[in-house]
C-alpha cells in the first residue's frame, strides 16, 4: 500500500510542476493567484500522503490543517489587494 501512496504522491508532485507553469508564465497576476491556490491544495494532499508513508499521520495532519488555513487566507488577502489597488496589466 505504501508503494501505491508513493506513486500517487509522485504524480501529485508532477501536477504541482504543471501548475507552476501557470504560476510562472501566467499572463497576469490573477492567473498566478489561481495557480497558487491550486498548488496549495495539492501540497496539502502531499503532506498527508507523506504522513501516511512515514506512519506519522497524527503529526502531519496538524501541519496540513495549518497549510489549508494559510492557503485560504493568502488567496483572500491577494484578492483583496488586487481589488483595492485595482490594476490588472493586460486583458486576456
Amino acid at each position: 500500500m505504501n508503494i501505491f501512496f508513493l506513486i500517487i504522491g509522485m504524480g501529485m508532485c508532477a501536477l504541482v510542476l504543471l501548475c507552476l507553469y501557470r504560476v510562472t508564465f501566467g499572463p497576469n497576476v490573477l492567473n498566478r493567484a489561481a495557480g497558487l491556490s491550486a498548488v496549495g491544495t495539492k501540497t496539502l494532499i502531499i503532506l498527508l500522503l507523506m504522513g501516511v508513508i512515514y506512519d506519522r499521520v497524527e503529526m502531519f495532519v496538524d501541519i496540513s490543517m495549518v497549510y489549508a488555513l494559510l492557503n485560504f487566507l493568502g488567496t483572500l488577502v491577494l484578492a483583496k489587494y488586487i481589488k483595492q489597488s485595482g490594476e490588472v496589466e493586460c486583458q486576456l
Partner: protein
Amino acid sequence: MIRESQDVIVKTLARLLVPFIVIYALYVVMHGHHSPGGGFQGGVILAASFVLLAISQGLDKIRQRLSEKTAGILSSLGVLIYAGIGLLCLLLGGKYLDYGKLSKLLPVEPAQARSLGILGVEIGVALAVMAVMCLIVFTIFSFDEDSGGDE
C-alpha cells in the same frame, strides 16, 4: 487602509471560521510538547485570525478589539512571562529556565513541573509573537490612511 469588505460571502465565512481558528491556535500552543508546534506557530495562527478579521470587517473594528496600545502591552507581557519564569528558576537555585526547580513552589513532581514550566514559557512566546505580528500587519494595512480606496 483596509476597509470593510462589501462581499457577503467573505464576511460570513470569516465570521464563522474565526473562533475555530483561534481555538486551533490555542490547541497548537497548549499541546506543544507532544505535537508539532508550540509558541511561535500558535502565535502566528492567532495573528492569522486577526488578519482574516481585518480583511473582512475592516481595520477600524479590529482596532476596537485589539488596539495598537494593547498589542504593545501584550508583547511586553509575553517577554515578561518568559523572562519571569526563567528568573524564578534562577532564584530557586537552578540555572536559567531550569524548570525542575519550580516543584518547590508548585505541589507537583519535578517532571510535571517541567511540563508546566514549558507551558508557561510557550504562552509567553505566543503572546509576544501574536502581538508583534499584529503590530506589523496593522502597520502594513494602514499605509495610506488618508487616501481613499475603492471599497
